[in-house]
């Protein structure tokens, strides 16, 4: 069995370029409700860019630099807009019953990505290096310990929180979003009710 040939066949059957980068769309795709997912994706790009800038200069940069504070504020507001658009995406797709016609996989992957994105948000708030971060860490530890996950994740361990927030969790979110988009492009936009 040739693995490369199998991968080629799988991509050709499930995700050809015409689906990955479409130049035509069904005429029923003409509502604002189709824009929230793409908006969340655009904001995710902005979050990655501002996040890279913040990680280049370190988590304490923004406390003493005006430019750093502005970049941190962009990252902060990006998170608010990201979850706002994500919530609208979730509500509109729920009302459109978009899991029809075998699209449950798209929903499952999207829900998992949403969960990991929320955990990424929590680790981001823990990384602020200010009173808010101290308060959130001390409150969150009780919930984490009550769920039995304290031995794996300690909200007061800044080193663990930093590596999770800048490497592990973003990779998880980006990978799952990629899989979510592949499912969407493979199946095409769901027909209206």
């Amino acid at each position, binding site marked *: 069995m040739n693995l490369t040939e199998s991968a080629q066949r799988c991509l050709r059957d499930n995700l050809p370029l015409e689906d990955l980068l479409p130049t035509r769309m*069904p005429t029923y795709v003409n509502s604002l409700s189709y824009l929230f997912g793409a908006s969340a994706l655009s904001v995710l790009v902005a979050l990655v860019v501002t996040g890279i800038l913040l990680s280049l200069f370190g988590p304490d940069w*923004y406390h003493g630099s005006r430019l750093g504070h502005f970049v941190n504020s962009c990252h902060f507001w990006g998170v608010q807009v990201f979850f706002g658009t994500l919530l609208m995406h979730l509500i509109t797709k729920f009302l459109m019953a978009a899991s029809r016609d075998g699209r449950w996989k798209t929903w499952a992957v999207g829900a998992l990505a949403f969960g990991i994105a929320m955990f990424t948000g929590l680790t981001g708030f823990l990384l602020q*290096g200010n*009173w808010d971060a101290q308060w959130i860490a001390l409150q969150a530890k009780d919930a984490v310990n009550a769920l*039995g996950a304290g031995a794996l994740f300690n909200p007061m361990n800044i080193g663990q929180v930093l590596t999770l927030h800048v490497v592990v969790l973003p990779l998880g979110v980006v990978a799952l979003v990629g899989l979510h988009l592949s499912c969407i492009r493979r199946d*095409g936009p769901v027909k209206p009710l």
Partner: protein
Amino acid sequence: MSRHSETYLQGIPTKPYDLLREGLILLLFWAVVIGGLAALFGSPDYPAVRGEDVAQRQPLAFLKTSANLLAGTNSLQGYGPLYSPDTGNAQRFLGVAPADWAGVTHPIDSPATSSSNPWRGWPS
């Protein structure tokens, strides 16, 4: 098109579409919105509180807490796993305390962390 979408969208009228152009327009739009919100409202940054700050601003409260910590009577010292061995006080969820199963994985020396260490560096 993929076999799946070709079957699903058979007979459905389509219109011209530019995915990358729409994506770039959205990215630019949200970048302006986010930049505007950041410039207008900034982000919260109330400074972190250190043991040293408490010792300097509220010395009596700090001394009282330190005395409790050194005597081993502060409530924080009996938190339970993962920080201290008092399993009876472990955090519970639906009556179960899973933190007990892992035991003390992050031991905290409360008298040193919260009382004696903040005094270091002070002029004698």
